[in-house]
């Protein structure tokens, strides 16, 4: 049987992968995928904590509800985010972070 720490390290690695995508990739769509990875890493640790921290013999369902909320929010965020990326592409013909140079950094 795996221990809690196994799941946590897996979740941490997934989070780090997401962070890596955000920091290393230049395409906004791919960066957005990295953000999804980060959210899912949080979900994994939540589900693991829920399974290992039993409340009166049952899983702590509060955490699973939060996971459920996070998934819905992530879906809404993806919809809005992709709409923004499409409008950006229509106006600028690019989805590269480096091309976002109208505003002075």
């Amino acid at each position, binding site marked *: 049987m795996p221990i809690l720490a196994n799941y946590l390290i897996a979740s941490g690695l997934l989070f780090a992968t997401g962070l890596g995508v955000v920091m290393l990739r230049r395409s906004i769509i791919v960066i957005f995928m990295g953000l999804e990875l980060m959210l899912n890493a949080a979900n994994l640790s939540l589900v693991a904590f829920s399974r290992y921290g*039993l409340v009166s013999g049952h899983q702590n369902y509060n955490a699973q509800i939060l996971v459920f909320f996070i998934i819905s929010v992530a879906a809404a965020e993806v919809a809005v985010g992709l709409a923004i990326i499409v409008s950006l592409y229509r106006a600028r013909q690019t989805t590269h972070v480096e091309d976002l140079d109208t505003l002075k950094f």
Partner: protein
Amino acid sequence: MLLAAFWFFATLMLLFGVSVVLLRNPVSCAMSLVMSFICLAALYVTLDATFIGVIQVLVYAGAVMVLFLFIIMLLDLREEKSRRLNFGVTLGGVLVVAAFLSIMTQVILSTPAFAIPTPTIAGPQLSDVKMIGMTLFHSFRLPFEVIGVLLLSATVGVVVLSRRTLR
């Protein structure tokens, strides 16, 4: 058995995750992302969270990936041009990720509370879906309603943002 499943799916999930970082073609990235999420769903099942696992597959494979692929096709995105890597940014990114990883591993390994084995779930329980439904509509009404408002507002926003011409 469970341990083997964990190692299998966790390794696969991370491999697909890493390939999101490494692959150049956005379509491959999206496919790896979805595969990674499906492995994640399998991990949820090993944690006895069947409902969440199912939702994960439905939402991510069914909705999110379709959206991503749709947008990638719509915008006709090609492979990321291999631009010259900005060395400073890359180094900074690698450093941040490495720092995060080392801190996290140390914290996890130094916390004895995290080394517990899987506790057994006691006695007869309602099915997973029923428990989630009870909790959601019993104790989590308010956040659930807020999520409803969020979806409404996001819908309006997406419509406004993505129509070619506004009426």
